[in-house]
């Protein structure tokens, strides 16, 4: 058999399914068909489809987007192609944002679809060749996504196992890049909800109204553009876990809505009048000091206590420097195999530089630094010079001592520096200095500083 990639077609219209399948079979593919989303997901669980064609509009049960998200959950490797009619191209673009590989508007030219299929499969073939190699590595780390020998981190890992099968809300605190989502995943996938969805929502990325419909879904006609009913992330997380990242950023109104879900485990879709019941465990994360936010009146106290039933505080990387060599080695192995570059390890001097760095961006920054070093590395091992720019970064970090000069001289220097930074832009320089423009002009005259606009 020259093509052993199975393909799935999900459409409520039988003619559409059958004819599409027949056409693809002439090309030598094994094709399965499903008359609805549920059946499609069921089939996807049993077979490793390379491509799933999913019709956007299916009047009964799951719609195309939900089907796609479920299929992608059980088969993250599968490429989903959304099929749509002209009227719904907007929604198809939405589908792409949700992770569809492509969308096609029916009816389409045979050439278009045959090129699309062969393009995707060519890519799959390449990926599967790489994946064999990568899997060998991944297997070693599957159970050790969080790599540590730091006692505080080990304590946290123990805690994640203990609380995994509880339903209690968890609040994870930590600077950005410390791995809050990894810990949340560890909790979810170690517990009795592991087979159910783990849904991530980044609260800071969306405006209030968008976040509201993202979380709770909406009814048809709730606002312009709401052409169909849509389920929110809470509903999608039913039975599983919803991870609310950057919870400290949500608006007072949403704080109220969220509190209600946590208390009553039910909510209304936007524009809806019927309550929806949901059983989703909430894990929230923040890099802010929520207690402080509560104190300042910016975060509801009642919500804070609802969220903070179990608290996990992740230490920054600079407080667990003993993990830096372990993490660095891990990233070198993973990233070099991903990039297809043979890098055997890190030299001692390079490691010394890594350990000395302060890592304000924490583990994520370390990962980025290793990736950058691997990309530019030429001799098979990461050496001091591959990460030497870190040292410059550390040296130029703001270590500033107040010089022993008259106050006027200090002011002059501050003005010159601000003008330089803002490339002579008076408006921005004055804003940076915290004075108004006319004051800045006065001072420029007084210190005889010339400027160009």
């Amino acid at each position: 058999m020259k093509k052993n990639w199975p393909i799935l077609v999900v459409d409520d219209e039988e003619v559409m399914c059958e004819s599409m399948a027949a056409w693809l079979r002439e090309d030598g593919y094994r094709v399965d068909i499903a008359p609805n989303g549920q059946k499609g997901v069921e089939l996807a669980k049993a077979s490793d489809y390379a491509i799933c064609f999913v019709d956007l509009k299916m009047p009964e049960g799951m719609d195309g987007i939900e089907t796609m998200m479920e299929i992608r959950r059980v088969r993250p490797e599968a490429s989903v192609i959304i099929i749509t009619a002209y009227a719904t191209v907007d929604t198809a673009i939405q589908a792409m944002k949700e992770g569809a590989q492509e969308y096609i508007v029916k009816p389409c030219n045979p050439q278009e679809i045959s090129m699309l299929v062969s393009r995707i499969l060519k890519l799959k073939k390449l990926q599967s060749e790489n994946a064999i190699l990568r899997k060998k590595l991944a297997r070693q780390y599957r159970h050790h996504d969080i790599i540590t020998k730091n006692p505080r981190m080990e304590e946290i890992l123990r805690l994640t196992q203990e609380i995994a099968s509880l339903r209690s809300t968890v609040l994870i605190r930590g600077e950005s890049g410390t791995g809050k989502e990894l810990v949340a995943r560890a909790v979810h996938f170690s517990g009795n909800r592991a087979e159910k969805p783990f849904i991530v929502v980044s609260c800071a990325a969306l405006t209030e109204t968008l976040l509201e419909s993202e979380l709770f879904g909406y009814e048809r006609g709730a606002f312009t553009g709401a052409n169909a009913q849509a389920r929110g992330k809470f509903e999608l997380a039913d039975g599983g876990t919803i991870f609310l990242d950057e919870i400290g950023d949500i608006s007072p109104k949403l704080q109220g809505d969220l509190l209600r879900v946590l208390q009553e485990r039910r909510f209304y879709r936007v524009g809806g009048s019927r309550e929806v019941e949901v059983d989703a465990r909430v894990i929230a994360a923040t890099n802010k000091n929520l207690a402080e936010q509560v104190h300042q009146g910016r975060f509801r106290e009642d919500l804070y206590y609802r969220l903070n039933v179990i608290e996990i505080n992740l230490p920054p990387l600079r407080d667990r420097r003993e993990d830096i060599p372990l993490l660095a080695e891990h990233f070198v192995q993973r990233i070099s195999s991903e990039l297809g570059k043979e890098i055997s390890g890190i030299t001692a001097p390079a490691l010394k530089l890594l350990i000395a760095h302060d890592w304000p961006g924490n583990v994520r920054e370390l990962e980025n630094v290793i990736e950058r070093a691997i990309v530019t590395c030429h001799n098979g091992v990461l050496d001091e010079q591959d990460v030497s720019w870190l040292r410059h970064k550390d040296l130029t970090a703001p270590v500033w001592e107040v010089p022993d000069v008259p106050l006027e001289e200090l002011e002059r220097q501050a003005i010159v520096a601000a003008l330089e930074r803002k490339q002579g832009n008076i408006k921005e320089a004055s804003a940076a200095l915290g004075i108004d423009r006319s004051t800045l002009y006065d001072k420029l005259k007084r210190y005889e500083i010339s400027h160009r606009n």
Partner: protein
Amino acid sequence: MKTLYLVAMGDVPKQVMEWIEHAAAEWLPVAIRRLEARVIPERAYDPKRKQYQSVEMMKMLAEMLPPDSCRLLGVTDVDLAIPMLSFLFGQAQVDGPVALISVCRLRQEFYGLRADEDVLRSRVVKEVLHELGHTFGLVHCDDPKCAMSLATHIQRVDEKDEQYCAQCGLQLLKRFSSQEAEVS
């Protein structure tokens, strides 16, 4: 020996049916017979797209399959489509008894050119070999010259030879003889 049946669906020029009979006879050692032309049922017509649904036509063919047939090839002059695709030159059941070809888009006139009988005959032959090949279990071939290569537009049809490549030809023969052995 079983029989390959040909049937015109709607009006199809006699000449076209003769070309097809010749081409099939050249490649398959079977008896070939023509059924009486059928009228295309109204339900196969899609007024929105002004095309005919290939699926309906294939269903019709499957229902009229004579008991002593080894294959049934429908031939039509109307424009074929399926919901997903804007058109089809033809359709076949892979390793099944029924196939269908449309002459409509094989005509130069379709592309605003002057009618050309030689060009039409050549294209019809390639399509017949292609769809019959499918019914004997062949799938698309990577050799662009082979009749079994996938053509998604008319230029691709013209690039093909009026024959199978060595591999596809051999496979066809194998499939054919093993199926003959089964029935006898």
